């Protein structure tokens, strides 16, 4: 019992420390983004562009495939569920709202956490192990400005953009299946989807995607900066980073859905 309580206490303190570290990294990154220019050490546009290419543009094909599949899956489930009530045409509203409010942001979040969150941890962890982070600091380059801030900006731009793309592709997936089942044209389906959607539906997804973006970057960074123990340590940190960010994304999604949906 004593060992269990000691272990629990240790885990709690570690979690608090990591939370504090993540918060500090976030504030420091914001400081560099806002005040860097006045200190003549601005966050470089080319770094943001490179990160945005890696996180966002290269993720477009896989985001498209997954969101299309989710849209189709919702259409299959929706049509079957609504059949007994003769309300199959209502599937358009269901898919439009669930994709824009929920699924697109969640799928993009999980995908980017697996794809880019792990890459952030592996990259920072390897740099930490090979003393490249120390080298940056002794050259006079703050690693938060040079590495963390561009990642944060890039993630905050690309995640919502990918979510909007996911919204559209998800609805398209639903449209393709519904057009096959109900004989409704894809254009009619999409027109009806856009007519039922209000700005707030899309905004909900976008707000969530921005929160997921911050979670992925911070979890990736804190795990990367704390790497110890060579290549094996980098591997452990990468796994931990992915599991942690996906778990936090799902929990944060639940919390924000509660606050954003209830009126």
């Amino acid at each position, binding site marked *: 019992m004593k060992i269990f309580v000691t272990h629990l206490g240790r885990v709690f303190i570690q979690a608090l420390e990591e939370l504090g570290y993540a918060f500090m990294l976030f504030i420091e990154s914001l400081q560099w983004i806002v005040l860097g220019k006045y200190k003549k050490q601005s966050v470089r546009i080319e770094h943001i562009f490179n990160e945005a290419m890696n996180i966002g543009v290269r993720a477009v094909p896989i985001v498209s495939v997954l969101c299309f599949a989710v849209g189709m899956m919702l259409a299959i489930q929706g049509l079957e569920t609504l059949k007994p009530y003769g309300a199959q045409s209502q599937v358009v509203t269901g898919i439009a709202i669930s994709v824009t409010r929920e699924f697109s942001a969640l799928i993009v979040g999980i995908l980017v956490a697996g794809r880019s969150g792990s890459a952030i941890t592996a990259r920072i962890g390897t740099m930490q192990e*090979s003393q*490249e982070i*120390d080298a940056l600091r*002794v*050259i*006079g*380059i703050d690693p938060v400005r040079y590495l963390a801030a561009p990642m944060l900006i890039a993630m905050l731009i690309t995640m919502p953009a990918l979510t909007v793309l996911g919204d559209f592709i998800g609805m398209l997936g639903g449209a393709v299946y519904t057009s096959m089942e109900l004989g409704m044209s894809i254009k009619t389906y999409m027109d009806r989807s856009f007519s039922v959607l209000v700005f707030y539906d899309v905004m909900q997804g976008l707000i969530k995607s921005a929160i997921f973006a911050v979670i992925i970057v911070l979890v990736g960074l804190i795990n990367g900066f704390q790497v110890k123990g060579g290549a094996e340590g980098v591997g452990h940190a990468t796994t931990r980073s992915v599991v942690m960010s996906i778990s936090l994304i799902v929990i944060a999604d639940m919390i924000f859905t509660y606050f954003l949906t209830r009126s």
Partner: protein
Amino acid sequence: MTEKIKQQTEDVIQIENLVTHYGDRQILNGINFSVKKGEIMVVMGGSGSGKSTLLRYLLGLNTPTSGHIRLLGKDITKMTADEMHGMRKNMGVAFQGGALFGSMTVGENIQLPLREHTRLDENTMRIMSRMKLEVVNLAGFEDLMPSQLSGGMIKRAALARAIVMDPKLLFFDEPSAGLDPVVAAELDELILRLRDAMNMTIVVVTHELDSAFKIADRITVLDRGEILICGTVDEVRNSDNERIHNLLNRKPRQEIVDVDEYMSRLTGQNM
């Protein structure tokens, strides 16, 4: 002449009562030493002696528990981030494994400090990086990636990056580690040439005896977080301190065994 005398007596690095901890464990225990302008100071010691830790504190990468570290007359333990940023322009560091950025070419690595601290145009930066590559005998390698270089070449490229801003202070961590004797000797020659040509003050951390005796003006020997001796090469060689003797003659340390403590370690109980 007076200028030369003044230069030789001016301390550019001063460490006073430096105490550091790693968690609860004390690593450095009241370190005091100074390095004069234009001097090559070699910090020696075995594994776990605290020499790498000392270097991290000298570079301002960690904050000490207590004590002062003065570089070029300014206490870096009390500096603001902006003041430290200014100080970095005067410091060059070559890390043990090179720490070249793997995503950049050798040339880009060397240009990075210039890009951060100066407003030189691309062409000038390229010329300056080529000049430093010439100094370290790596001319023509600027477009290669660090992964395409050998161990000795990586150390020389790291040295080129460290000296690109013509720093007043140069720190070199384990220049000979992992290199064959010929390449290690070439690096030693390079360090001596750099001091003579650029009048840098150089601190080298190493455990290689031959290298230390060849390049050092003075040697500081660390053991278990304390300075055993700080003196000229001859003073260190002729020291009658047993621990220094053991280090120089590669003899294993004699651990004093306390029977009670040994038993309590084995059993996990206080005896």
